[in-house]
């Protein structure tokens, strides 16, 4: 039973436009959410996070939005760059659960020049 889902396996965007990656979760006990970026043959790299007490967090070109009532979060990348092409994983964490992350299945983003 997947508690964190990324329903779009891939996304193609033109350079300079906005990329929007979506993530849904089912477990209401999750209280911290993270986005990771992964290149082939490398480990995931932390990108941005958001606590469940907030609805938005911004870091440069990256913004994460959280809608708790809908159990939905999204990552916006503006403007998208070719170097952003990678697989993006959404992850969720429960307090008092050993900080273990539950990951979504990933979305492959391709930014075309």
């Amino acid at each position, binding site marked *: 039973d997947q508690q964190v889902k990324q329903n779009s396996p891939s996304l193609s965007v033109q350079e300079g436009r906005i990329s929007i990656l979506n993530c849904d979760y089912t477990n209401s006990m999750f209280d*911290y959410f*993270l986005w*990771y970026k992964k290149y082939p*043959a*490398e*480990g*995931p*790299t*932390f990108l941005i*996070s958001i606590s469940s007490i907030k609805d938005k967090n911004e870091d440069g070109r990256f913004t994460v939005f959280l809608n708790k009532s809908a159990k939905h979060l999204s990552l916006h990348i503006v403007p998208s760059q070719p170097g952003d092409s990678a*697989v993006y*994983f959404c992850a969720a*964490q429960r*307090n008092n*659960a*050993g*900080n*273990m*992350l*539950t*990951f979504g*299945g*990933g979305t492959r983003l391709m930014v075309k020049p």
Partner: protein
Amino acid sequence: DTAVSQTPKYLVTQMGNDKSIKCEQNLGHDTMYWYKQDSKKFLKIMFSYNNKELIINETVPNRFSPKSPDKAHLNLHINSLELGDSAVYFCASSLRTYEQYFGPGTRLTVT
């Protein structure tokens, strides 16, 4: 100045063998983890460990065991390897509840 390192990067072995994957972090983190990425590319937590507590994902077979000689290392031992153990294994570390930093992964192939 690698933050989280794993050895070996590739491991090919036969069914029934016992193998270990080593992980080291030089970030001064207090918690380390092992994740498995299967053939469908899903990343799943296996263990979370700090010097006080080991938390095991209940789906992990007891053939898998983490061993930590000190705070900077968390090695993964696998006994009686099976074909289904073939995957990429990632080590990660964090400081308390903050973001986790991942190693480059070890691709295990069981033949």
